[in-house]
Structure formats: C-alpha cells, structure tokens
C-alpha cells in the first residue's frame, strides 16, 4: 500500500498540549478529600530492625495513619517476580528474592521504606517522620561485588548462605579449542559503573477507591499500566475489572517505570482501600536517587582470541553483575549483556558466564540500554585492544569481522532476552560502518586533520564503534481502531507513553490505512479501561509491536469501510479509494460518502441487521513477533581533550542507524538524540557513587551530573533501512540506540586523543578527575 504519512517528518500531534501545559501528568490529578503519603526511609544500607514505634506520629495533628510492615498483616509478602528467569538455559541458578512492600526484619538498602505516613498534606507527612522511633541494629554492608562472594562476607539473606543471586553460563562452539589455535590472545578487566535513569518526572501515583462503585482508579507514571492493574488486583483480591490504571503523560520512563508492585504502589493501594480516601504520592528527587531502580554495575574479565590477520576466533567473557538488594526483574539486564557482547560480529566460539550478586544498594533493573551498553563496551574495547596489538586500523578490524548481508537470518547460538535462541533477522552492517566512516570523514581525519591538529598541540581523537540493539520483543500488543460518527478515528492501545511520540507515529499508521489526516486520529495509550490487553513499553518495542497491532486493526477497519461503502455506493471495493475522510469511486470523485456518515450507517439505531453483523467501523487486532528484531548502527565521534583540565569536548557526533522502516524520521531522530545525551552522561558525567557502607554519596542533582544542553555535540544521523521480515511494516526499535554505543565510542576517542601518553581506559563512566588520575597515574 502506498504511504502518504508513514515515513514523513510530521510534527508531533501531542506537542501543542505539552508545550502549553494542557497535558495531564500524575501530579495534576486533584480529587476532593485527597490525602498525601510520605515514606520514612532507612538511612542505613544494612540493618536489623529491632523495632519501629509510630504511636507518637499517629497523634500528630493532620496525620491520618502511619503504617509499618507490622501493620500490614497478611498483605506483607515479597512482591511478584516480574520477569521469569530463563530456565531454558541449562544449569541456571536463580535465587529469587523479590522486593518487599516495606522492610520488616531487615533493611537491605539505604532508602528502603520503613514506614508510610498518610496525612492531610505531604508537609505534615514528612514532619511526622521525626515522631517515629526507629530502632535499628546496623550491620556491615555488602558493596564490593567480589568480596560479596568471598568467604566471611556479611549476607543479605542469611538463609541463602550466600550473596549469589544467580549463575548463568552459555556457550557457542568451543572457546578453549579456538584459543589453542589463536595467534593472539588478549585479556582485560573491564568495569562499568552505576548510573541513574534520571527521568525529568519522578515516579508518582494517585490511588483512589470508590466504595460505592467498588472501583479503584490509579493514575501512575507507569510503563506497564496493564501489568500494574493485573498485579494490584491480584494483591488486593479485587477483580481486574474493578481496577483501572491510567498512565497519563509521563515525563520520561527510561526503564525503571516498568516496575510494578513497588513498595509505594503496594502501600498506596492497601491504604486507599482501608481509608476509603484518595491518596497521592509524588516521589521527590532525593527519593528518586535512593528508591528508584538503577543500572549498569558489572565487572568483566574478557578475553579475545584472534588470528594474526585480525579474524576473531573466539571470545570469552566472565562477569559479575550487581543486582542490588532484590531481584524482582530476574535476569533481563545480564542476559542482554550476554546477548549483545558479540554485537554485529561473526564470532564462532563464545563463552559467556556470569554471577549475579546481592548487594546493599538500590535494586538494578533495566535502564535505557538495559545491559546492552555493557556488552557493547566490552566487545568494542577488546576490538580496539586487538587492533592496537595487531597494528590494524580500528575500522579495518571491525569490517573484517562483520556479519555479511547475505548471512541473515543469523542464528547466534545462545538464548536471548525473549528466552528463545537469539537470531538476527536482517541488517547490512558493512553499509552501516561505511556510512558512518563517510559521515565523520574518517579517512580524511586520520590522514590530514588529526596530524595537523596534533602538530598544533591539540589532543584530538576519533572513535568509531559498531553495535546491535535487540528490540521489539514479544510477546504481543493489541489495538482497537474505531471510526467515529464525526469522521475522526480513535485508536486505543495498551502500551503507555513516556514521550516517544506515539500520538503521532501511531496516528500516521492509521491515517494511511483509513484515509484521514494524522491530526484526525485520536490516540489513547496506557488506560486499561480503553484497552486492557498488552504488555508494556520497554525494550524499544512500542513502535514495532504496538505499531503493527495498530496497523492490523486499521487494516481491519479499512476492510469494513470498503465493504460497507461498496454496498452503499453500488461499486466494487477495488474501484473505491479513501481520500481525506471520504470514500469515493476512483473514477468519479464526486460519487462518495464521508467516513462519518459511513460510521453512522454502520451503527443503525432501529431496524434489523443481518445475523453476524458487527456494529460500527471498528476492529481490534493483536500482533506478536516470532522473536525480537535486531537493529544496528555505527557511531563515530571526534573529541578534543583539554591537556590541563582533562575536560573532553565532543566536536562532532555521527550515528549511522538502521531501524528498518522509519515511521517518522523526526521522532526517530528525537529518540536517538535523547539516547545520545544519556550515553554521553554515562560516558563522562553520570556515576552513582556508593561508599563502602552502601551510602549513595551523590543523591542530588548538584553532585550527580547530568549532561546539559551545552554538553551536547552537533549530532548527524544517517538513516539506513533494512526492513525487518518479522513484521508487516518492516520496523525495528530505536529507543535505546543512542545510549548503547556512546560510552564505548567516547572512551575509544579519548584514548585515541591521548595516544602517546600510554593511557588505556577499561572503564566507564569517566570524569575529568578520573581521566586526570589515569593520565597522571
């Protein structure tokens, strides 16, 4: 079908509302009689709870209730496992310890909730913390990943007898045999540290229970409103139809908002049922640092085996992954690391093995990139090391090992994040690398510019790295498309929106199918009463999985439109066209009927219809891919390092990216820009600094540095388009693209700029200070 809108750079439908303050965010929800919750959180990272006495706080004027774990009775139990462990991997160890509603016997991370205060205002709630007497017996904290697994380490879970949360090994081919044949074997320790998702909008909820209708309405900053509804209904013993979750406009998701049944959600739900009054809780920034999930800490021992001419024979990567205090989200993050380490390269023998460790730090769950940046960082560092050792150009060694376009579908031989074998569906990796080289002017920079600038005393360097991005995983999403009697078209889907432009790209898909303008398509996302089947917004899957469901539903409506119009206009369907909201006979444009009129005719108010008739111009369809589509790209940047301050300026940043069919280049560019800013943060600015007692030392935006607009380089994006064969529209995801390769590229570029100083960088994130230490020893 020819497309009029899909593929166009259309401005976003939702922006006028967002830019004029007319969009509803959770904190905008005001209900008469609404109460406010606050959470007293532990200052200690590891402690035994001897007792909590809240009786004085309950007497404070304005305080309605104070709940501790002891008050919850049977409701207190470890929360649900949100993602199963991939038991299709043989010999997998998974010690399940899910997050609890509130600390009861032990505190396992600083910031864990000890008591929930419900009060007339948030001010009163927070003032009441001072009235709560908490008796804690501090315990030695577990923070070092290796020491945590050693003998004599304090334990988070004494009954387990170990801090080991999980162990997973996957093998492809035979690494030991490959190593024996190799000309060169290189080994390094590589460390990636923690960062925050740092969404502009923190978490927030309003829970409201109406005793007369016996219904609960929840406004939540959720990436998974349907899962949240189902889990909350289950925990509260309510029917799913009694719970409505609305994820309105959300100021950024980036992963942590996929979590459901978190302590705050559980306490608000339970309290609103007991008190019969609406309750709001909006996370403040400090709580966001302490009590919103985080990512990235891993320690890798990697080894690469190559022939003298630079062909990879095998790769071994043994790593430790920090899961923090609980492991409700199972193994998604380390599994992604495992499945992204091989990247776009042909690696015949791969040994990958990891141990997951419980520590007294905030829980680790996916944050934009979700394990992929670590895998890419390890692989790309080893490639750079190999290039140096073999005296090869960094792009030449990469080109030599890329999977070729005729090798797809390319099975990778290990289990991926959807628990089936990882298969790359499509791509053209050599073209992607070539495009990036051309855009950054690689050859010319190396040959002319860099020698000239270096001669002038400037520390300039170039970096170029390749990556894959596993996206668009199942299981499924669904959508309902309805033509209104006004002629406008309604679309409802279960995924929530946190700024991805769904109101526009989804509208473009429908506009093409149904023959209306995108501005006449009204998209509703993330309201379980509007659409109650679906999984959520994660793993760069919205545009592909929900998008294809919407496409299918819109095609279903188109079929109904044409069938009914054919009858009314007495013209065969194939002679009809739908243009600007009118169904007309292609040869006789004046002979037609508007979609609005057709919608009225499809929904007769009197008379009889033929048996089997479905009313209205409406269709509900679902889409689930066989497995996730793999997007790919190459990133390149030129940096200049200040020799005195070791500040790094990114002079130029380019990304050649292939996400299959592009629905809206403006939105894809925006997704990439956002990802790049996150990637830059996790290259040079953002690092959550925990001390050995499990205290987060920079839990504020003064000390935890986010890249500012002025830190953003000019970004040039080259789009490639290898449609995915896994879905009718040929799309792949793009949401994490910018974040995944940037730290690896940044470090390579900085190392290149400092060539001659003998600096080897095997860690991220850096900072000017850390760089200074590396340079000056």
């Amino acid at each position, binding site marked *: 079908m020819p497309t009029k809108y899909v593929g166009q750079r259309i401005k976003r439908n939702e922006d006028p509302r967002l830019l004029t303050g007319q969009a509803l965010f959770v904190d905008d929800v005001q209900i008469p009689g609404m109460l406010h919750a606050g959470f007293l959180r532990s*200052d*200690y*990272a590891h402690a035994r709870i001897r007792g909590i006495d809240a009786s004085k706080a309950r007497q404070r004027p304005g305080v309605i209730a104070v709940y501790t774990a002891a008050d919850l009775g049977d409701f207190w139990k470890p929360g649900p496992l949100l993602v199963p462990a991939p038991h299709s991997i043989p010999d997998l160890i998974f010690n399940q310890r899910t997050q609890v509603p509130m600390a009861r016997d032990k505190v396992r991370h*600083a910031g864990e909730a000890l008591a929930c205060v419900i009060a007339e205002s948030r001010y009163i709630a927070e003032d009441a*913390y*001072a009235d709560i007497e908490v008796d804690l017996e*501090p315990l030695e904290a577990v923070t070092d990943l290796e020491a945590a697994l050693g003998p004599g380490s304090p334990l988070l879970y004494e009954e387990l007898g170990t801090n080991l949360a999980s162990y997973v090994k996957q093998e492809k081919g035979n690494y030991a045999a490959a190593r024996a044949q190799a000309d060169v074997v290189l080994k390094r320790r590589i460390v990636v540290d923690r960062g925050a998702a740092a969404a502009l909008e923190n978490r927030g909820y309003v829970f409201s229970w109406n005793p007369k209708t016996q219904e609960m309405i929840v406004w939540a900053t959720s990436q998974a409103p349907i899962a949240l509804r189902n889990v909350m209904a289950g925990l509260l013993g309510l029917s799913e139809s009694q719970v409505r979750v609305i994820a309105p406009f959300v100021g950024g998701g980036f992963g942590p908002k996929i979590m459901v049944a978190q302590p705050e959600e559980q306490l608000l739900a339970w309290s609103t049922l007991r008190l019969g009054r609406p309750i709001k809780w909006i996370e403040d920034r*400090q709580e966001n*640092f*302490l009590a919103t999930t985080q990512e990235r800490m891993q320690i890798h021992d990697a080894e690469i085996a190559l022939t003298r001419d630079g062909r990879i024979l095998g790769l071994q990567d043994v790593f430790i992954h920090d899961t923090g205090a609980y492991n409700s989200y199972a193994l998604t993050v380390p599994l992604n690391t495992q499945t992204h380490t091989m990247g776009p390269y042909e690696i015949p023998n791969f040994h990958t093995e990891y141990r997951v460790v419980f520590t007294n730090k905030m829980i680790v769950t996916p944050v934009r990139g979700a394990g992929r940046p670590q895998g890419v960082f390890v692989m790309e560092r080893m490639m750079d090391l190999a290039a140096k050792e073999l005296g090869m150009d960094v792009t030449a060694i990469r080109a030599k090992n890329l999977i070729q376009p005729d090798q797809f579908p390319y099975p990778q031989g290990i289990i991926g994040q959807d628990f089936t074998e990882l298969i790359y569906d499509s791509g053209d990796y050599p073209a992607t690398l070539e495009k990036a080289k051309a855009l950054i002017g690689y050859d010319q920079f190396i040959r002319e510019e860099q020698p000239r600038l270096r001669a002038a005393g400037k520390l300039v360097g170039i970096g170029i790295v390749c990556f894959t991005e596993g996206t668009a995983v199942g299981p499924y999403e669904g959508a309902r498309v309805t033509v209104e009697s006004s002629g406008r078209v309604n679309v409802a889907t279960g995924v929530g929106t946190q700024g991805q432009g769904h109101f526009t790209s989804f509208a473009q898909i429908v506009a093409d199918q149904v023959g209306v303008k995108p501005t006449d398509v009204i998209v509703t996302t993330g309201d379980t009463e509007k659409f109650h089947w679906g999984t959520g917004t994660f793993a760069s899957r919205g545009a592909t999985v929900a998008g294809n469901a919407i496409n299918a539903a819109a095609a279903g409506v188109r079929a109904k439109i044409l069938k009914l119009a054919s009858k009314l206009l007495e013209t065969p369907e194939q002679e009809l066209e739908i243009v600007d909201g009118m169904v007309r006979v292609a040869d006789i444009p004046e002979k037609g009927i508007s979609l609005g009129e057709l919608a009225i005719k499809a929904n007769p108010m009197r008379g009889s219809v033929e048996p089997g008739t479905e009313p209205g111009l409406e269709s509900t369809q679902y889409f689930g891919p066989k497995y996730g589509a793999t997007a790919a790209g190459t990133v390149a940047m030129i940096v200049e390092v200040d020799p005195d301050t070791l500040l790094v300026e990114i002079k130029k940043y380019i990304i050649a990216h292939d996400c299959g069919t592009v629905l809206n280049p403006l939105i894809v560019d925006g997704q990439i820009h956002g990802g790049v800013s996150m990637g830059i943060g996790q290259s040079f600015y953002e690092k959550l600094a925990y*001390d050995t*007692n499990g*205290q*987060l*030392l*920079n*839990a*504020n935006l*003064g*000390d935890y540095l986010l890249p500012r607009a002025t830190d953003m380089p000019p970004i040039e994006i080259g789009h490639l388009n290898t449609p995915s064969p896994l879905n009718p529209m040929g799309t792949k995801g793009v949401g994490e693209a910018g974040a995944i390769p940037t730290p690896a590229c940044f470090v390579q570029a900085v190392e290149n700029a400092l060539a001659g100083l003998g600096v080897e960088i095997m860690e991220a994130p850096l900072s000017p200070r850390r760089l200074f230490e590396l340079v000056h020893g």
Partner: protein
Amino acid sequence: MKLEGEHIFHGPRQAVWELIRDPDALAKALPGTETLTRLSENEYEGTMHVRIGPIAGAFSGQVTISDEIPPESCTLTAEGKGAQGFVKGVGRLQLIDEGDDTTLMKYDGDIQIGGKLASVGQRSLDTVSKSMIRQGLESLNGALQARLSAATTGEEVAYVPPTEARFAAAVVKDMAGELLSSPQAIWAVAAIGAALALLIGYLLGRRGRR
C-alpha cells in the same frame, strides 16, 4: 572518611587532659553543641546542631571514652543520629608533652556517615569536618588559656566561645581557602564564597527568628 591531624595546646599536658575530660568545656568549645551530659565516668550524651553544606539539623548521640591512659591517650567512639542521617566515628587521641609547657595533640579517626548527611552533604563534608575540628581545637585552646590565666592570677578570665554564625563564616572561609589552591578557580570561588556566606547568614538568621 579518614581524619587525622595535630594541634598544639599552649599549656601543660595535665591541664589539657582535664579540659578535654570536662563536658562543659567541650560543649562550649564546639559550636552547635546544645547539651552534653556526663552519663558515667566515660560516657556522655548530648545533642548538637550541625550544618554541612545544605544539610542542617540536630543530632543526638553518645560519646564513649575507652582505652584511657591519663593524661596520655584515649579512644573516642561517637554515635549520633537525627532527621538528617547518622554519624559514627572512632578516633584515637594522643597528648604528647612537648616539654616547653606546650602539648601536642595527635588525632586520627574514621568517620561513617549516612542518610542525607551522606547523600547531599558529602561534597562539603571533608572540609566542614576539618574546619569544625580546627575551630573546636582553637576554641578549646582559648578555654585553656583562660583557665591557666585564672589559676595564676586568681581572677576569672572571661572566655567567649565563637557563636554559631561566626563558626559558619569560618567554615565558608576554610572551604574557599581549600578551593583557592587551584589558581584558575579564584573568581568562581570568590563568588561562591560570597553567595554561601549570604546563604548561611540568611539561614541562620531565619532559624534565629523562628
């Protein structure tokens, strides 16, 4: 955080020892100390108002003295907590008779902090603690002079400990001084110092009015 340093007291060791074992003298010398009560020979309990960077609040806790070898050395263990977090520290104090009526105090210790004090105050903690210790010791030295002079002349000599505001201003000066070691930062630091002084002055003023 590790802390170590030394300080010279202008007086004989026995007098210095008596001074640091006197809760009233200690409470006066450490600005922000609201109460300090002796529970037993070697245990004190008290409350202190502390400001570290943007974090301010009351801390209550205990100090225990152990391994005491009068008038030479002792170990101080302090634990305090408040709405803004907790502090836990162990320190070893040593008094060395320098033979010329002066006494050298050497100290080293390890401090653990938690809560907001750590997560927000961390950046200024090092400088503020050092500044507090330096000022506290200087102030104790002042008290010592007053005592010694009273003992020799038989007259009461007034000793005026620094006010909390003066103390805060000195902390700012110390912080700026530390930053000033980097020559490029001089203008930035001057501006930040002025702003901090204004802010602290404002906050203290506001606290005073409440």
